[in-house]
């Protein structure tokens, strides 16, 4: 049985892949910002304008139990605005800005630990499947921290990839970082990517790169793909250098970067521009690359013929690694493929604005 988990501005929904049966709302009224798995546990990160951040765990997707101590740091800093548009947050009720942790945007399981990326940009590590968390000081207290600033979606660490030996963290609007020592230290890795808004004659800053989406080849962790604010990039040297490649895309802006492990196919959802953030000409389409990002084309069939002005946020894409890929939109619609992007169909439901999805 395959379950699609959909995290929205106002709760989560579980959908049976085969029957389309939709669960009752889980955590109704709470923003559901990330899903994860660790050990026997399914994890859901929730967030409330009134009540702050929480984590719920389940072993059967039926009974959910809150954890006692989600990631937290004392004090506040940064933007105080988790509002959305840059792929993460909201436009009608984001976190209150009173805490160091405003939202949990990603979970990532490695061999030895479960990792969480949060807003304001920070990384936490758990060795008990998410019950308790330890701040990753090598990232959180980085020497460049005083230069970090938020994107439109807030200052958030939204993607963690790799394994304990070589870990990548993507943070908007800061950039991609790599750790080769289990998270003890991190170095920015953004060479080849322009900094947003800076002319070419200005010296390149060490941070200030607005990575929107990041994926890695688990069989070769040196190969990465990046949907950035300023375009589509790939790296073949462990993020040391990046090369722009947008051949076939109707626009280079967007938030989605997903890779299906079995087929090696990449998926993105192009948007007109940072100023508009809607599909070009109302043509909502997922684009696919069959050649590691060298060229892109519309992914298969099934797309709407009517104008469809919606977008997929960076956390609202997931797959099973074996041909199933799901994307949720800000309009509350859900698109899926079961054949690595040959055909797509829309689920028969409409939810609130979708922030996160998972395929379990």
């Amino acid at each position, binding site marked *: 049985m395959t379950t699609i988990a959909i995290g929205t501005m106002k709760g989560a929904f579980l959908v049976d892949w085969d029957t389309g049966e939709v669960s009752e709302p889980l955590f109704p009224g*709470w923003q559901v910002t990330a899903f994860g798995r660790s050990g026997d546990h399914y994890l859901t990160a929730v967030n409330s*304008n*009134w009540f702050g951040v*929480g984590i*719920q765990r389940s072993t059967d997707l039926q009974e959910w139990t*809150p954890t006692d101590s*989600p990631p937290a740091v004392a004090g506040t800093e940064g933007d105080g605005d988790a509002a959305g548009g840059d792929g993460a947050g909201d436009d009608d009720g984001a976190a209150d800005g*009173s805490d*160091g942790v405003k939202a949990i945007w990603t979970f990532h399981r490695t061999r030895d630990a479960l990792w969480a990326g949060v807003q304001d940009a920070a990384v936490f590590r758990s060795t008990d499947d998410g019950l308790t968390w330890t701040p990753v000081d090598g990232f959180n207290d980085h020497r460049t921290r005083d230069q970090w600033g938020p994107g439109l979606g807030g200052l958030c660490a939204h993607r963690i990839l790799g394994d304990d030996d070589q870990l990548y963290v993507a943070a908007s609007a800061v950039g991609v970082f790599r750790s080769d020592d289990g998270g003890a230290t991190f170095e920015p890795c953004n060479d080849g990517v322009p900094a947003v808004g800076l002319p070419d004659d200005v010296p390149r800053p060490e941070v200030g790169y607005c990575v929107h989406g990041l994926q890695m080849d688990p069989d070769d962790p040196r190969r990465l793909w990046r949907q950035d604010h300023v375009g589509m990039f790939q790296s073949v040297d462990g993020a040391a250098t990046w090369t722009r490649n947008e051949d076939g895309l109707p626009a280079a802006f967007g938030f989605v970067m997903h890779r299906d492990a079995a087929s090696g196919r990449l998926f993105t959802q192009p948007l007109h521009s940072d100023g508009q953030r809607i599909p070009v000409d109302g043509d909502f389409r997922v684009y696919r690359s069959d050649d590691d990002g060298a060229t892109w084309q519309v992914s298969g069939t099934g797309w709407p013929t009517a104008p469809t002005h919606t977008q997929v946020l960076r956390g609202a894409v997931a797959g099973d690694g074996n041909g199933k890929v799901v994307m949720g939109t800000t309009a509350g619609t859900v698109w899926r493929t079961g054949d690595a992007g040959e055909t797509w169909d829309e689920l028969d439901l409409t939810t609130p604005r979708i922030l996160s999805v998972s395929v379990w």
Partner: protein
Amino acid sequence: MTVELPSGLDPFTGGRRRMEVDATDVAGVVAALDARVPGLGGHLVDDRGALRPHLLCLVGEEAVRDMGTPVHDRVRFLIAVSGG
């Protein structure tokens, strides 16, 4: 004394919206709730122990934000209109 909680906390209280605790001030109420339902206190106060900004705390009929405010027989936590 009786503490009343908003329905929005149902996922973290198992749906319990009324609890009896022993406390002498608001901070003590939060501590007692957290002892009863581990983690619940963190949804009422922030990391510095202050009442979350979009919550309202009524001691009797008076809205308070001072965590040292003495409590008697009834405390209510409500979601404030400022929360959206």
